[in-house]
């Protein structure tokens, strides 16, 4: 899994790429937790740009749950631009009911 984090002043954007699975979930967890802290500090919404992600298994999804819990309601975590597979996974897992899902990153904040 690759990872990029950027702050454009309106939102903090995390961009995982590749797969989040049993091999990479710990790395994803560590990076996402740090991103949550940075977003809380900056008082910005956190957008996870899923456009570069092939898929995420249940471990990755549960990392999202932990991140939400870590944010303690101080910020909202958005999921953006999922590919068709990720859109399906979010629907199957009902995670699309737990997180706001948007088509584009720029739909959040600003």
């Amino acid at each position: 899994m690759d990872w990029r984090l950027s702050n454009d002043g309106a939102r903090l954007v995390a961009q995982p790429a590749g797969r989040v699975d049993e091999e990479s979930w710990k790395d994803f967890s560590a990076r996402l937790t740090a991103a949550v802290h940075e977003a809380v500090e900056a008082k910005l919404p956190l957008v996870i740009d899923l456009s570069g992600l092939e898929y995420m298994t249940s471990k990755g999804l549960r990392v999202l749950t932990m991140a939400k819990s870590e944010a303690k309601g101080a910020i909202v975590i958005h999921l953006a631009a999922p590919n068709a597979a990720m859109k399906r996974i979010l629907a199957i897992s009902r995670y699309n009911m737990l997180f706001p899902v948007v088509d584009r990153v720029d739909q959040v904040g600003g």
Partner: protein
Amino acid sequence: MRVRFWGTRGSLPVAPHADAVLAKVARALMIARGRSFADQDEATAFAREETEFATHATYGGATACMEIEADEEAFVVCDMGSGMREFGVNALRRCAEGHPRLYHVFLSHPNFDHVMGFPFFRPAYETGARIVIHSGHPDAEAALRRQQEAICFPVPFETLRAKIEFVTHPPDQPFEAAGLTVSLIRQAHATRGSYGYRFERDGKAVVYSTDAEHGAEDMDAEGAFETFFAGADLVICDTMYSLGDAVSLKQDTGHASNVVAVDLCHAAGAKRLALFHHEPNGSDEDIQRMFYETLRYEELVRGERPKLEVLCAYDGLEVEV
């Protein structure tokens, strides 16, 4: 080995109302579009082949009870949910044909939905039957006796004629029973936990893992389950809730999700997964939808692995292992 499901529902026995059955008949007639059939066999074949499972059948409503046919010398049963009543009737028929009246029962945990079938288990009333109840919980006997106290049930446990023995097993100490090598694993389930079982014989392995929560906070613990499921020919998993529900509304109720079950089986290199312990609020259509979604999820996250075959258990299903 052959696995036979006598009860696949979670928490509470259920039965479809009359209008649910009527809707199935109406749907099948719509699909038939006026077609005529020579006899009932032809109509049955049409229904089986041309309509979906939720239309021509039902997943059933009895709570957890699963049989493993492995050894001609003894019956092997996992859990004593309401499905145990029908298993008992069937077992007596087989005993009449010469099957020994020895029963090895493996209890996941003594919650009511997993023991409620025992007072209706006719072999327990038979002189000459021997029932060995294996459990990870030392108070399994207390639970069975309690549910037959006068305030709950008219027949006291003490009057049962079968010879009933209780054996408590520590996890991580495999033992032999009914020609099987049996291992236990401790599982997270509400406050008192539950136990999963792995049964091995002649190079084949069946895992029974129900009422096991795999939460977001303890994902590191899943390595033990991947080892426990390793290479299994069939893994029977509690898939009562969606993952979203399991980590939110239903958190700490002690149940797993279909997607976690697939991931554990993928990581373990298991060959087949049976979805089990269905949500009692779920209609046949709901359970079938969950089954289709699980097939799709398995496909989406399979990566370079071999395909994991996914089955949706129903009362009456038999699986050759």
